[in-house]
């Protein structure tokens, strides 16, 4: 009696992934798995490539090398039609909402269903209304995106990301730009939606409060060594990881001047302390 269930195994399996633009490598040698039903955090300082990694995971940026397995299937080895089909299992919330400004909020939520399903208009309208009410925007369907506050834009973007009932929800800085109370409410909503629909959530964030409150697992990227320097739940990284950069990030401290510590030092290397949940 669970929501739409997943096949066995991880939802996302990242193998030796390198990402970047042309000759410029942003991150390399990434290996991690995102377990079904978990909330997985992509952490790191600004500019380390978190959003670029999310773009590679949701199919917007081809990797330089390596593989991204979506429910066991190599995404970038699949042909374009197959990739488009896999894409329908993704819901993406962009950092600034990226709502289509020429449409009302309800039309924004309905468009994925209009374009990618064969449902009748009445069903689509009803489903869009449900998604909006789940994120607490039941009265705002007729509003234009320009008329919404920052928190409402995030919620509307979340409702649109939920439009096709995705198996994997990807959130780019969901609480960025929100006050602590609105950020906390959004965190609670994300948790409720995960528990309700049983989705897997991958989330880019550097909001410590949000990371510690809701994420079960994660990966910490470093801009200098251009790879992951720690794996595990944010709470565990805060309490146990003694990599200087991770420690500084998790405790809001000034980073060490010489942070040339070996990647993987003190058991923080890829896979070394991978703690699902």
């Amino acid at each position, binding site marked *: 009696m669970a929501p*739409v269930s997943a096949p066995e195994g991880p939802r996302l399996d990242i193998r030796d992934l390198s990402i970047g633009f042309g000759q410029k490598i942003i991150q390399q040698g990434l290996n991690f798995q995102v377990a079904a039903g978990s909330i997985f955090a992509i952490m790191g300082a600004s500019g380390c490539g978190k959003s670029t990694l999310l773009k590679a995971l949701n199919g917007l940026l081809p990797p330089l090398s390596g593989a991204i397995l979506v429910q066991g299937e190599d995404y970038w080895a699949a042909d374009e039609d197959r990739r488009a089909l896999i894409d329908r299992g993704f819901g993406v919330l962009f950092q600034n909402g990226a709502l289509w400004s020429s449409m009302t909020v309800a039309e924004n939520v309905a468009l994925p269903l209009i374009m990618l399903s064969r449902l009748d208009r009445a069903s689509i309208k009803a489903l869009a209304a449900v998604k909006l009410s789940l994120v607490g925007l039941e009265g705002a369907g007729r509003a234009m995106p320009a008329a919404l506050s920052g928190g409402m834009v995030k919620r509307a973007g979340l409702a649109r990301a939920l439009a096709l009932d995705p198996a994997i929800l990807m959130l780019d800085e969901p609480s960025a730009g929100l006050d602590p109370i609105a950020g906390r409410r959004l965190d609670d909503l994300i948790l409720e939606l995960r528990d309700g629909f049983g989705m897997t959530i991958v989330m880019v964030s550097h909001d410590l409060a949000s990371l510690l409150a809701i994420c079960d697992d994660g990966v910490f990227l470093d801009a200098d060594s251009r790879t992951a320097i720690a794996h595990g739940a944010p709470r565990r990284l805060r309490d146990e990881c003694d990599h200087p950069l991770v420690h500084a990030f998790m405790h809001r401290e000034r980073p060490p001047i010489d942070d040339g510590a070996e990647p993987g030092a003190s058991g923080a290397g890829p896979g070394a302390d991978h703690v699902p949940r």
Partner: protein
Amino acid sequence: MRPVPPLTLSRSAEAGHGWTVAVEGDTARVVLTGDWVARTDGVDLAAARQILASRVGALTFDARGLGHWDSALIAFLLRLRDAAGDGGVAFDEGGLPQAARRLLGLAPRAAAKASAPPGPPLLDRVGLWAIDAAAEAREGAALIGNLVLRGGMAMRGGAAVRASDIIEAMFDAGAAALPIVITVNLLVGGILAFIGATELRQFGAGLYVANLVGVGMVREMAALMTAIIMAGRTGGAYAADLAAMEGAEEIDALRAIGIPVFDYLILPRVAALTAMMPLLYLFGCAVGILGGLCVGAATLHITATAFFVQARGALSGVEFGLGLAKSLSFGALIAILSCRVGLRAGRSAAAVGQAATSAVVASIVGVIALDAMFDLCADVLGV
């Protein structure tokens, strides 16, 4: 328990999901079965009405046969809960999966019925429209006043206008626009000559094509056609630029650090287009007459010398003065209207397109109306 035959079975065969209702005393037990997948099954909009048709006092659920589900089930349950609430029927979520109960908890009751409040009555709308129109007229007048004041200041070196901005804007509104202005005016001159040749030949007055083309281009068509081209090309671009800057808060950034928006953004554009339009007009006249000559020579075998002598006889300084005055006014009108439209655009991507469209439409209508006023005045003054 008194088992009753199923009232309805919602698209069970092909959709893979279904519900049946068993009534026991005052309670209806809704039995949910199969997979509920929104993308393929949609929402059964009539279900709530059918289930509540049995006129019971309470609804309970049996979800033991439920397979995979997503928002299709939540949509079904929310509609049922709202309908039950309206009919005073108790809605017992106890038999539903925990996850579904959490999602129902997120959505407030009667969510589906939330609607926008009705708009203001007609009289209020007319009043609001009039107030808006008056405010717009005031702001337009303020813009023109500002333009005169700041333009005067700029000429005395007292405004924060950069020469490089003006030169860049002049290149864009002048040299860069020249190819299309030449092409269109050449064709318009040719078209005038064709029309004239067809009619005038009947009276043996073919040579008067030179008068028609000369006076037509210089008094009217060169200024008008150039203005219409520039309204579409440059006016639209001004409005779109400013609207995009407004949307990206770039104009707020200028204001916030105290850079006068008017001097920095509006004045160079208005000055450039106003200054370049008369030059484009003169080019338009020259190539229009050339176009007329080509057609005249080809269809009526008029020599170049005869054509120019005839045209020169028909033209005087007054014609050129009128054309130059028109082109100057058209340039200023297009630039002011387009900048005004761009500055008052909304802050979205769609607003950029709307601003460009409005600027082009307003500029073209404005140019034609102003042209008519010029011609009326010229007629009254006898020039």
